């Protein structure tokens, strides 16, 4: 960790002013200012969402807008929930999210195991193919998939959104493989000597050790499903099947957009993501760094 670097040299450095040290101090303050400004900018949308959510209709029409709500209209949240079938959409979204998460964990763990803990001819070549599929833009597959799902009678069901998650995802395979490669292979070898099958090794030895990486995949897959917009947009046409991502559009279908209510509903949708993020920040950061660095 380079954050701890040169602590020693700092302690041992002579009392005479060191030009490099003052430069470092300046760098410190410059960085601090940049980060404070950036952090404010990055949190502003959330701030504006929450404050708009609690403003009353008269305050919303005030020019210039108020930075802090003068009156807090908490009832906007209950109004928003009643404005659209929020509960229905929440249940739909949760069902899709839960199954997608389960599908992603099961399939990617098994596939990543095959790509990391078993030696077989052509393995790394095929893994190259897995990585290459990341570069295929989704629009090139979406039309035939839609046609196929339509033939199967899956339009207006959650199946097109759930079933594909049970067949592996290149990002998660890559991420889990990175992790599984780091587990010492002696564990598997000695288990094999004792007569354990690959399934048993995966289930009893690797699974408990891979929990942190599995958590990362579970969280990422859940957030991706919760946040998904395009899939529900094309596959769910019946209003009773809508997810929150599509359902929230309803606030804008009327002539006058109910901004307070839309922002209140958005707050309710975003809140679980923020809570999960704050609770599992470490997993998030592990996930993006494990998934990206070579």
């Amino acid at each position: 960790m380079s954050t701890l670097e040169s602590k020693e040299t700092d302690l041992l450095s002579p009392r005479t002013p060191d030009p490099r040290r003052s430069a470092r101090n300046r760098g410190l303050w410059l960085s601090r200012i940049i980060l404070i400004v950036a952090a404010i900018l990055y949190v502003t949308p959330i701030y504006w969402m929450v404050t708009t959510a609690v403003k009353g209709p008269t305050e919303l029409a005030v020019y210039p807008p108020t930075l802090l709500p003068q009156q807090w209209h908490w009832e906007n949240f209950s109004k928003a929930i009643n404005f659209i079938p929020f509960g229905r959409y929440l249940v739909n979204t949760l069902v899709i999210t839960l199954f997608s998460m389960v599908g992603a964990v099961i399939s990617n763990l098994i596939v990543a195991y095959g790509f990391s803990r078993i030696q077989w001819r052509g393995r790394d070549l095929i893994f190259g193919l897995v990585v290459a599929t990341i570069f295929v833009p989704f629009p090139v597959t979406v039309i035939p998939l839609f046609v196929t799902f339509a033939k199967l009678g899956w339009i207006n069901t959650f199946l097109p959104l759930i079933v594909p998650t049970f067949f592996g995802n290149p990002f998660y395979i890559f991420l889990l493989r990175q992790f599984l490669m780091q587990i010492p292979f002696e564990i598997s070898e000695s288990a094999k000597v004792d007569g354990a099958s690959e399934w048993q090794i995966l289930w009893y030895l690797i699974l408990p050790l891979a929990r942190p990486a599995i958590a990362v995949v579970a969280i990422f897959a859940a957030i991706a499903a919760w946040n998904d917009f395009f899939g529900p947009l094309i596959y769910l046409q019946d209003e009773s099947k809508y997810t929150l991502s599509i359902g929230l559009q309803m606030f804008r279908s009327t002539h006058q957009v109910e901004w307070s209510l839309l922002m209140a509903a958005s707050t309710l949708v975003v809140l679980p993501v923020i809570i999960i993020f704050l609770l599992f920040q470490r997993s998030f950061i592990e996930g993006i760094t494990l998934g990206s660095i070579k």
Partner: protein
Amino acid sequence: MSRRERYNLMIGLLFISPWIIGFLAFLVYPIVSSAYLSFTRFSGFGVAQWIGWGNYTRMAQDALFWKSLYNTAYYTLLAVPIGVVVATVLAVAMNQRLREIPIYRAALYLPSVLPIYALSFIFIWLLNPRYGLLNLVLRWFGVPPIDWLGNPEWAKFSIVLLAQLGAGQYALIFLASIRGIPQTLYDSAEIDGATQWHKFRFITLPLITPVILYDVIIGLGLGLQVFAPSYIITSGGPVNSTLFYVYYLYNNAFRYSQVGYASALSWVLFILSVVLAYGIFRWSRRWVNYEVGS
């Protein structure tokens, strides 16, 4: 192949079989199928009628196709380089020894995990010429109100701005890469009298080029596929200034029942993506440094 090898091959393929099935069903088949459909006139139902290169010649004369391609290129060429610069600056700033770094890290990463549709809703209200926060802040500095989303010139740029909320995620990836650089490199540079800028320019920057390449490649893919923000915020307007490629493709496939034409559009995007990714990989050999670091 020995018996042992054959056994391992079988077991290996068995473990990755979910991926193989998904690869064939959700990738290979749709790609081949959309290639076929791109040579047909097809409404989505009934029989596809073979028309040869008709869709492709039509594309060459379709002003909206060129417009959407231009818009997408404009967006990608602005969003990706700006994103790399923002991520680099934030990462270097976060590499300083500041006690409050975890706060900045959380604030900068948070928007990356939020649903794009919710951020898009917020953005409409944030950028509202009269009631939005952005124009309010600009007013403090004497800037006259800007019609961010109503003016064709500004609308595209507004969506580029929205994309920058995702830069925090890349900043963390860059930061992990910076922390992987051996401290000895900086120490010896310091002995030679290197300034902060020199150290950044000749040590940090060259050694994080692999993650910059990662950002560029992923950013390029996402840029070419941008859809939700313009669908939600501007509906492609004003005057088609935010009609991006995938949006136009979506309209053809799911609104105008021009499924054959949309398939041709998707194949052009596919080829374009592959060619650009390949070009960037070739070009990257000149500037990406794989020797030291992560």
